[in-house]
């Protein structure tokens, strides 16, 4: 079932990688310009009409963001994850809000939390979760949340940090 769809997709698009996770979940990598076209095709031709999620993964070392669109076909009970690698420096992606109106919400969140731009998406620049945030978007990996929290908020003294493995061993099994 999924093999047929992938071979159909391969005829039209350049699939960079195909990872079979299980018999009903497969992840594909498609280049940035064709991804939304492939999602369009998956929705209208292959029945992947339930949009599960859209999220981004930050691969800081490679200088890339990976966007993952997970689509679900409720009739065949299969899922396809469409992965797109975009440049981290100039992060922008073709908007998919015309396929599902709810995608606009995901794109608003990604714009705020990762700084990924989706030109044309409705209400993209409205604040969604954060209020008055300045600087690096917090979900980027180069944003250090612990250092930020330590310097920005008033701390109460007395908090210590232990390595959980050794601490548990000393506390619970001191004789082993």
């Amino acid at each position, binding site marked *: 079932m999924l093999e047929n769809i992938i071979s159909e997709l391969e005829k039209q698009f350049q699939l960079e990688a195909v990872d079979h996770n299980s018999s009903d979940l497969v*992840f594909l990598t498609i280049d940035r310009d064709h991804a939304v076209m492939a999602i369009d095709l998956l929705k209208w031709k292959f029945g992947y009409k339930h949009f*599960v999620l859209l999220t981004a993964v930050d691969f800081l070392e490679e200088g890339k963001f990976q966007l993952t669109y997970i689509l679900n076909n409720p009739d065949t009970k299969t899922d396809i994850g469409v992965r797109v690698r975009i440049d981290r420096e100039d992060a922008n992606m073709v908007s998919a809000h015309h396929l*599902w*109106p709810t995608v606009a*919400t995901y794109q608003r969140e990604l714009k705020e939390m990762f700084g990924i731009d989706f030109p044309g998406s409705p209400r993209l620049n409205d604040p969604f979760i954060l209020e008055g945030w300045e600087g690096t978007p917090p979900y980027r990996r180069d944003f250090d949340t612990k250092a930020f929290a330590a310097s920005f908020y008033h701390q109460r003294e007395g908090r210590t940090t232990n390595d959980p493995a050794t601490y548990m061993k000393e506390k619970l099994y001191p004789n082993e």
Partner: protein
Amino acid sequence: MSKKEFFPMDGDRTKYPEIKSDGTADIDLSSHKYIKLWHGPNHPGITGNMAVELTLCGDEVVEGITHVGYLHRGFEKLMERRKYIQNFPLVCRIAVPEPDYNEYNYATCIENLTGIDVPEKGMWLRTLTLEMARLQGFLMWIGGMAGAIGFGTVGQWANYCRDLVLDRFEELTGGRIYHIYILPGGVRNDIPEGFKDRMEKNLREIEGFMKDIRRAFFDNYVFKKRSVGVGYIDPAWVFDYGIVGPNARAAGFKHDIRKNYPYAKYAELDFEITTAKDSDIYTRAFLRFEELLKDIDLIRQILDKMPEKGDHISKVSNMMNLKIPAGETYVRSECTRGEYGYYLVADGSEYPRRVNVRGPSYTHGVALLEKMLVNVNIADVAQLMVSLHTYPPEIER
């Protein structure tokens, strides 16, 4: 293609006010025809700590904008800097009424990627906790639904029943609200002796209360008068707006992850998908009530079919510094609100690269709610929100 078809965000503003060419409503606040009113975050008729910015014309809502983020703690960021096992205390705090779904999904993600086996009894105990979580989630919701139309008595009964379930949770897991019971490889403790009898006693008591609630609330003239025909969800919106769970089933979409994608031990249990047709507030409320009764039945089935003996957790070596090879997976389960999904990306280290939570309220609470609020009477806003069963921490995490 007309503007309206291409841009479905503009909602069904059939009456008033007019829609401008860019798709937004033509609302001129200085004309004094409209009132801007914030519904929340400090408001008794709101589901949790969120806000809806309403624009009213008379007592009718012409525009509603959801504001979330009041509960944002940055879980997905915090999880990236904790080891896999350290994340269990975090994940359960994402959705307070039903923490077990978070634990289950996260543990299953880890099991999928590492190939850890779960023993038979561990799976049964997981199914039991998930069903109990559904039961107490629905009980809490019924209290909220009745409270939204000012019917406090039902809330008192439902919360008493919920306390009974929480007692059994405490006996099984040690915690009232946060359990941290499901771990990779199984569950933390075995079932205590005599649990089945005590659960059965509680379930009988809950069933007695449910008879009362049905007569007092679902056959109630005022509730029917206020909710029948209000808050209609068009079946055509189900895929457009990512509607899942009871909201979709009340619109006639026969979809239940427990049945369609059987996880844990649901394949061995006997139950039917509840569906309804009318898709208004009353139908959604009654459908949830029916599911609640089915959950009681399912808990009985689980306790009957659960094997007496067997391991509840498999031995996993070096859980503290568990390393997961690079890969990604998506796991879903059916909580009271619908599809609860976890997307986990591992990069071969001891820390997850990214964990993304797909809460069902994410789509219900923002895009769908904003669409449904249009042309609703201000008095119905609270019950409309509760009937969607939105839970804000899932939206912003």
